[in-house]
């Protein structure tokens, strides 16, 4: 079965700016795929190319088995898109906009639309100019979720929604996945990504730096351990994979590569453990490492000196 989206070696420049520098992306059918990266990484440019709004300079892209530029209209029959900030027509009501997109996309499930309007607590009779930012986004979301499509491309779709609606959105995406639809979700909300995404691609400066399931990516992060010991801690600095070791009397704070957790715990229990707190790797730590390597390097310059003695080449 063909993949929903395949992108390989995509290049796109706007004058002197290289927005995409050999980007790769693979989205299987029926999965929710997270598309993450810092600002200016090339996420929106990639999405525009997938929608056939832009033409790549080089590289290959396929959406649902077709070329998105030359087969744009056919591809759009099976796609629904929600942009980051939605602008609507001032003198049209939300319901009219949803119906318009139903006509333009070639089919709208009426019952699903009504159900979604209720769940998102949207008033479809108000005019576009009276909608707040969140309500405008709800209009676009309802139009997309109610459409009869195979692939949903969502570019930061919940940036204006309150936490309650964010929950509704997450449940809707889960429902879409259960129906066998594919979702490409570009988001900065790591909680959302953690809840929803099966696989994740992280892009930075126009290239994909990491791609895989969250479980795979977590192996690459560190667990934070805080422990209060009965006796003096011993030999922790010598263990491989330990970073940021901080010993104050009998209190130990450290970060350890999750793969090396076992050895550290054994060392701690040897000294006698009074209390132990272990924080699993957060997605935030993972992303911050990829998003801002330059930024973290400058802030932890002091820690780097201490780390270098415990750092082990993996």
């Amino acid at each position, binding site marked *: 079965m063909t993949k929903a989206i395949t992108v390989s070696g995509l290049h796109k420049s706007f004058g002197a700016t290289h927005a995409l520098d050999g980007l790769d992306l693979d989205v299987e059918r029926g999965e929710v795929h997270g598309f993450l990266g810092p600002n200016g990484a090339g996420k929106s440019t990639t999405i525009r190319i997938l929608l056939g709004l832009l033409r790549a300079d080089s590289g290959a892209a*396929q959406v649902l088995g*077709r070329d998105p530029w030359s087969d*744009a209209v056919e591809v759009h029959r099976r796609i629904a898109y929600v*942009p980051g900030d939605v*602008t*609507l027509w001032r003198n049209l009501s939300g319901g009219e906009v949803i119906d318009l997109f139903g006509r333009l*996309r070639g089919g709208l499930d009426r019952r699903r639309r009504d159900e979604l309007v209720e769940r998102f607590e949207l008033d479809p009779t108000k005019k576009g100019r009276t909608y707040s930012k969140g309500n405008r986004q709800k209009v676009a979301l309802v139009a997309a979720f109610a459409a009869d499509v195979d692939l949903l*491309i969502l570019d930061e779709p919940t940036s204006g929604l309150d936490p309650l609606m964010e929950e509704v959105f997450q449940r809707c995406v889960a429902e879409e996945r259960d129906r066998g639809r594919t979702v490409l979700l570009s988001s900065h909300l790591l909680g959302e990504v953690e809840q929803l995404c099966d696989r994740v691609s992280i892009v930075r400066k126009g290239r994909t730096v990491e791609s895989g399931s969250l479980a795979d990516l977590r192996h690459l992060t560190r667990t934070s351990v805080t422990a209060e010991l009965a006796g003096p801690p011993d030999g922790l600095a010598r263990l491989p994979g330990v970073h940021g070791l901080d010993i104050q009397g009998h209190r130990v704070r450290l970060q350890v590569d999750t793969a090396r957790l076992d050895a550290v715990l054994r060392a701690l229990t040897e000294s006698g453990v009074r209390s132990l707190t272990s924080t699993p790797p957060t997605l935030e730590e993972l992303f911050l490492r990829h998003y801002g390597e330059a930024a973290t390097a400058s802030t932890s310059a002091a820690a780097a000196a201490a780390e270098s003695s415990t750092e082990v080449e993996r």
Partner: protein
Amino acid sequence: MTATAPAPATAPTRGARPLAGTGTLLRFALRRDRVLIPVWVAVNALMVLSMPNTLKALYGTAAERADLMRQMATNTSLRAMVGPVFGDSPGALTAWRVGVYAGALAAVTSLLVVLRHTRDEEESGRQELVSSAMVGRRAPLTAALLAAVVADAVVALLITVGLAGQGVAAVAKGPPGARPAFLHISQPTRKAGTTMAASSWKKNTTAP
């Protein structure tokens, strides 16, 4: 790095269908402008249709009309200011006095309508949302041009019918340079349309 080439397309290419969705977009444009277009059309038509009565007051008698023709023939600076008179009939005089203004107003209306449905949509970001649906690349511009054509056609029709109703011939039988009102009004649309189509064509087929 996954260097595998993407699988070949599983379905035959049907082509880009550049005008897909034009009908829907046209109906949508006319619906959005359901107040704007009628107002501009009405103002234009009223301006033209009120002219015969005004002219009757100014050049009611044959003597006054003969006087006018003589002045026009001799006084070149007058001709430069108000344009040459086409003829003697009420229709010719109406076309002379208000024809250019009606054409200019129709041109402005066309410009307004086309911009509202092309440039405004692009700048506000709504066009991106629309273009992500089943809409061909040429469809938005085509729909905008057609909406302008509709507006101009309505003006031309109103003027032709209205003048005929007043007993004034709206189609010139006389000297060249006078044209049927219909063609006269639609000229600005055709000019505006060709220019915009040309620039948009270049934009869509070359770069991003």
